[in-house]
């Protein structure tokens, strides 16, 4: 059977986390609001109402342009995209057609197998969101709360070649958006939505097949599934001797199926023209500079720095740059700890991220501070506590909000390095386990670990294991 290669381009709609909507002063985020309560004459298309452009939308779109190395149009225009639908109260969507805020650029990302992929961006434009509709029997219920929410639409070039690459691109994009602080990028809440253009061609041919557009894919898993479904469908069609037609397909997440949209909904002619109610968006040099100053170090850059300057392994650097807050936490802890960065990385990945996972909290919700983490590692280093106690301390700090040193003091978690105490217990253990002592003396030296464990258990972890081992070696030799 013929082998096929898929070519995929993604159009992502990114909901910006501004306070207000794109063109009116309603709240941008209506999550949990009663339907049609976060609306006004402007976003509901009341006759006579006029839009006015939200500065924060422009600022956040500009940050994304800078982050993906796009060319910035210092003067961009809003256009009307004309079509009628129940969720579009104005009868047209205000968007940017041929002169959008950003053009070109790229997003680099690593696949799990270490392969680096560069996905070029075609353009990046600002626009308003449509409302929500839901079916109820044979009627459709319209909620306009989401109408006018500011979006950035980012369109890639057809640079992706598998559902996996598409999913990874989205994961990286989501990371970037959160990193920049311009979108919550929560796909379940549709802050990040994706349409995928999918086509296939025989592996040996350069000729692209006709593409189909899958709309409304609302999770990274769904992107993977829907694209795979569509690739399989296209292969089936071709193998059955049929032609691929240029369809618009809707992904229904509830039923996990693809549905063809009515041709009317895909009418090609949107009759774009300039929105006469809005001035062009001019980006002054001052404005651009002020936005540049707000730009954080980007994750890909920081990852390199973690490898090259902090000496982290690539894997650690990747994990510690998935979220900006985690990354900042780690780096600040390194500064305070001022020692082996890899050691901080281990504690970060093994303990702090574990606690976040277990409790489901975010970095900002952590009770453990950067200073706490550095203190704990230092206490372990100085043998004030042992490693197990250190690990437990992370949980205790998170639970109580108390500082680690205080907890060690209050609960007497400090290591017993008093020779006499350890010697007493060790002697007791040796004498009450004559069989094991004999085995050891007969050459089964690995049993030393077992003896140390017994001592540690007896002393509820407070003994310095190094000390205990030293004493045990001495006692066992004597016999």
């Amino acid at each position, binding site marked *: 059977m013929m082998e096929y290669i898929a070519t995929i381009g993604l159009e992502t709609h990114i909901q910006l986390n*501004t*306070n*207000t909507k794109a063109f009116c*002063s*309603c*709240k941008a985020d209506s999550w949990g609001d*009663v*339907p*049609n*309560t*976060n*609306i*006004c*004459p402007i976003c*509901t298309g*009341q006759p006579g109402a006029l839009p*006015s*452009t*939200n*500065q*924060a*939308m*422009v600022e956040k779109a500009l940050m994304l342009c800078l982050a993906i190395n796009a060319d910035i149009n210092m003067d961009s*225009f809003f256009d009307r995209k004309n079509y*009628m639908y*129940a969720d579009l109260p104005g009868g047209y969507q205000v968007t940017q057609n041929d002169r959008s805020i950003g053009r070109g650029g790229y997003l680099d990302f690593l696949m799990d197998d270490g392969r680096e992929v560069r996905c070029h961006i075609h353009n990046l434009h600002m626009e308003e969101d449509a409302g929500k*509709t839901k*079916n109820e*029997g*044979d*009627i*459709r*219920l*319209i*909620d*306009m709360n989401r109408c006018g929410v500011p979006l950035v639409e980012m369109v890639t070039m057809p640079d992706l070649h598998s559902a996996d690459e598409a999913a990874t691109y989205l994961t990286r994009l989501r990371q970037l958006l959160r990193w920049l602080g311009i979108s919550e990028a929560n796909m379940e809440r549709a802050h990040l939505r994706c349409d995928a253009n999918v086509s296939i061609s025989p592996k040996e041919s350069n000729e692209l097949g006709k593409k189909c557009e899958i709309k409304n894919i609302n999770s990274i898993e769904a992107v993977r599934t829907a694209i795979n479904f569509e690739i399989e*469908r296209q292969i089936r069609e071709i193998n059955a001797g049929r032609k691929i037609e240029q369809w618009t*397909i*809707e992904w229904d997440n509830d039923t996990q*199926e*693809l*549905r*063809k*949209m*009515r041709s009317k*909904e895909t*009418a090609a*002619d949107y009759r774009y023209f*300039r929105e*006469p109610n809005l*001035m*062009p*968006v*001019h980006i002054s040099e001052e404005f651009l500079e002020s936005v540049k100053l707000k730009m954080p170090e980007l994750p890909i850059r920081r990852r390199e720095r973690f490898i090259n300057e902090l000496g982290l392994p690539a894997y650690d650097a990747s994990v510690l740059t998935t979220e900006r807050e985690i990354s900042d936490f780690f780096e600040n802890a390194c500064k305070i700890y001022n020692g082996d960065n890899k050691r901080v990385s281990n504690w970060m990945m093994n303990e702090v991220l574990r606690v976040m996972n277990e409790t489901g909290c975010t970095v900002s919700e952590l009770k453990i501070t950067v200073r706490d983490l550095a203190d704990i590692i230092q206490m372990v280093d100085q043998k004030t506590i042992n490693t197990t106690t250190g690990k437990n301390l992370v949980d205790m700090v998170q639970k109580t909000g108390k500082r680690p040193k205080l907890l060690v003091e209050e609960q007497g978690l400090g290591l017993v390095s008093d020779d006499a105490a350890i010697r007493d217990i060790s002697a007791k253990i040796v004498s009450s386990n004559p069989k094991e002592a004999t085995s050891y003396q007969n050459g089964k030296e690995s049993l030393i670990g077992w003896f140390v464990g017994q001592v540690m258990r007896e002393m509820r972890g407070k003994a310095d294991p190094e000390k205990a081992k030293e004493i045990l070696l001495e006692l066992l030799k004597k016999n």
Partner: protein
Amino acid sequence: MEDETISVEMFNEFVQVAELELTAEESESIRKKMNEQLRVIHELESIPLDDQLAPVIHGNPYPRDIQAPLREDVWRPFANTQDIIDQAPRSQDGYIVSPDVPHQKLG
């Protein structure tokens, strides 16, 4: 002047996309009018336009110092949201009601 009369088929297609039911008389008369008006539209082609002429959105220029600034991102809730919904010919539980839009399933 190129021949670009609006045929009955083309016209009917516009009417469909425009979502505009017309009576037979309206169709006939409006199509005829539109074809007459094409003459006016075609005048555009004979206007001598030099390369210096950039397209404009408005007649009067908008120097930056008099232009409206971008809107500050400050939430100002609209007080009469219910008045908006009350105007809808059909509503239910705070939603505006529309007849459904049928879909076709892909096998």
